[in-house]
């Protein structure tokens, strides 16, 4: 089972849920992996405190002009979708930080005047956090190509009974890269107008990807009923509710796991997992997905 924890809105509690769910399951003697895919600001390590055993660089391929072969025709600049190549007065200027490594310049160059060189944009770190296999990515500050680092995190992951992916917030390319091959997505929100607005955006994204999903409501006793009403209307299951408990915030601020500081919440996470697995298994048996997704075949 590969479960991605995502949210339209930032700061809703993805990391809290991802880490506590992983730890709950690891205590039930499964092989559990936690992949922190929020490579711009990974923070699962603050709570799980893994022993890092291995660090690997992440590189992307960047074009380089072969001196003497280039005629300055400008086709490379024309085909670059990302404005990463400027051709002025017959000179090709490459701006590596804007390059998406699509290879169009190399492909279309009539003189075959490009070669591709690796450029480091971040690292992948792997280790053990108790019984949890821990992997996260770190995008170098100033770099933009987080999807490449997220791919690196996923590639470093081996086999496990349960894989929990902590996604970046939002609905843009890095999020899609993090969640697109999950079996199920848990969308975390809070019962406020902001939470609802961003939940609707996230639901739109996930339905486009045709991945089954359910919702977790954090700080569930604040705000209003609109998130629940929306989920009812849209036939979306709410599989987890965590109350606005000051003690959780206190534990979080000390970098502690909720289920360690407040063991009574262990059952909350266990129940959440049971409900997700029930939905998942039911979907496998019946061929009907969940999350209000129309299924074909």
């Amino acid at each position: 089972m590969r479960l991605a924890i995502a949210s339209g809105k930032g700061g809703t509690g993805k990391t809290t849920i991802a880490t506590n769910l992983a730890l709950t399951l690891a205590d039930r003697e499964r092989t559990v992996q936690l992949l922190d895919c929020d490579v711009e600001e990974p923070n699962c390590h603050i709570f799980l405190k893994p022993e890092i055993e291995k660090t690997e660089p992440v590189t992307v391929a960047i074009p380089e002009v072969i001196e003497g072969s280039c005629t300055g025709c400008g086709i490379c600049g024309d085909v670059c979708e990302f404005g990463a190549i400027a051709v002025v007065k017959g000179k090709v200027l490459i701006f590596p930080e804007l390059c998406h490594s699509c290879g169009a310049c190399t492909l279309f160059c009539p003189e075959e005047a490009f070669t591709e060189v690796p450029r480091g944009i971040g690292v992948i770190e792997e280790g053990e956090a108790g019984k949890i296999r821990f992997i996260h990515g770190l995008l170098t500050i100033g770099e933009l190509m987080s999807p490449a680092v997220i791919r690196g995190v996923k590639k470093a992951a081996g086999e496990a009974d349960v894989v929990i992916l902590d996604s970046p917030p939002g609905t843009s390319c890095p999020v899609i890269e993090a969640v697109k091959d999950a079996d199920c997505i848990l969308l975390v929100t809070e019962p406020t107008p902001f939470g609802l607005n961003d939940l609707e955006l996230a639901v739109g994204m996930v339905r486009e990807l045709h991945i089954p999903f359910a919702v977790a409501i954090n700080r569930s006793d604040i705000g209003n009923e609109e998130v629940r009403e929306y989920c009812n209307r849209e036939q979306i299951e709410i599989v987890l509710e965590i109350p606005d408990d000051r003690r959780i915030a206190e534990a979080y601020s000390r970098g502690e796991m909720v289920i360690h500081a407040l063991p009574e919440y262990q059952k909350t996470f266990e129940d959440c997992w049971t409900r997700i697995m029930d939905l998942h298994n039911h979907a496998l048996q019946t061929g009907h997905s969940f999350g209000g997704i129309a299924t074909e075949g």
Partner: protein
Amino acid sequence: MKIAITATGPSLDDQVEARFGRAPYYLFVDPETMEVEAVQNPNVAAGGGAGIQAAQLVSERGAQLVLTGNCGPNAFRVFGAAGIRIIVGVGGTVRQAVEQFTAGTLQPTDQPNVASHYGMGGGGQGRGTGVGGGRGMGMGRNRRS
């Protein structure tokens, strides 16, 4: 001689735009005749690389000098390759800017005066005193990449 000036509108009496890559217009002015050609910037809302594209546009149209408010390192690199001189910190109307250049009171710069993405801060920057570029590119966590 052809001067390119970033502008808020298409005429000589419009203000000099502080942002280079995201200026609404580029005005190409002959300082002797004050003849003007206005080109709308197709990259005002580009995700990234607006300065590079704009510098290329200015170069392709044969400008030898650029007058603007702020210029970042990427556009600056293109100007260097194209052999175009650049003067930053320019304000007032386009007409005033050209007159100041003709009078010799403006000096070319040899380095960018702002960081990358300086001009990407949403709408509504202050203007009038010269540098009004919007900060606040922030983490850009919802941008496409």
